[in-house]
């Protein structure tokens, strides 16, 4: 019989004491019945976490506890509390890990933007009062909106309202205004970088 094949994953420990009304194969199945109560408790503790993530954590907790039912001591609390505690712990771990990753990515993104901004600002600063600065500005900003945007940027003004007015997008929804501002920022910075690279190459050549 292929029964021997099933030994591989089966624990050889004696079955620990558990509620005699729950047959061994059905522990997690029976505890699953508490999903609505548990999810309601955990969702309240973590209102910003997506419901799918809470479900995932609940099932993980259920399977974790289902493999060691002796962890449930009837005298110390009820099953819903135990499941909710385990689920909440898993939500916290996932949330913490996701938040840390998002912060790292945001930091990385900001670092890239700051670096680019700094390089672009250097170009205009270094050119200073020289005639080339006027030409560089003309090349970087070709339309009225681009010139207005570059002017605000040079003066280090990042007020979203003023930026939106400069781009003539103040009539758009806020989210769309932000998209347009970002787009413009990226465009101007790239042009300034290219100008800077070209100037560096020209200075370096004999």
């Amino acid at each position, binding site marked *: 019989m*292929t029964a021997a*094949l099933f030994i591989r994953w089966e624990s050889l420990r004696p079955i620990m004491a558990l509620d005699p009304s729950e047959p*061994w194969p059905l522990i997690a199945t029976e505890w699953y019945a508490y999903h609505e109560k548990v999810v309601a408790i955990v969702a309240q503790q973590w209102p910003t976490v997506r419901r799918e993530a809470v479900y995932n954590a609940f*099932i993980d907790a259920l*399977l974790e506890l289902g493999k060691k039912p002796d962890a449930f001591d009837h005298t110390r609390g009820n099953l819903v509390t135990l499941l909710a505690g385990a689920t909440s712990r898993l939500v916290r771990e996932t949330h913490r890990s996701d938040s840390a990753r998002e912060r790292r990515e945001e930091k990385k993104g900001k670092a890239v933007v700051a670096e680019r901004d700094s390089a672009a600002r250097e170009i205009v600063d270094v050119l200073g009062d020289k005639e080339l600065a006027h030409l560089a500005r003309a090349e970087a900003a070709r339309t009225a909106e681009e010139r207005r945007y570059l002017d605000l940027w040079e003066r280090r003004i990042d007020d979203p309202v003023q930026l939106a007015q400069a781009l003539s997008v103040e009539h758009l929804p806020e989210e769309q205004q932000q998209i347009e501002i970002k787009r413009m920022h990226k465009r101007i910075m790239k042009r300034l970088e290219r100008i800077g690279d070209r100037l560096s190459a020209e200075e370096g050549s004999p």
Partner: protein
Amino acid sequence: MNPHDRESLHAAVFRNTAKDPAWVGYWLARHQQTEDLDEEQLAGKLGITMENLVLVCLCRTPRSDQFREDLRIICQRTGASEEALAGMLRQEATLLHWSEKPPTRETGWLMAASDRPDETPEPPPGDDEQPHDK
């Protein structure tokens, strides 16, 4: 619970039980892949609803020394066909065994098949037989 939430919860059961052979869900997930079935077709083969398929997945894999009893308990609770579930579990366990230990040339039924090139190979042994028994 609204249908979307129910679907999410079911998906979490299928996904998470499929990771660990301690759960029947693991073997059913393997069977789905082997037979190219979706969850609804799998439930149909077992003669149960999707809701009960979720319950089956959450059951512990029957123990080697109490296979029939554990299987009976699972099927009594979930309404799944004992014959169908037993067949799936055995099939997938056998396939897993073969994939981990490919049959060697000493395997009787495979040698017999290779000695007779004109005949089609014999089918694998039945539930209670090991390959080397033939």
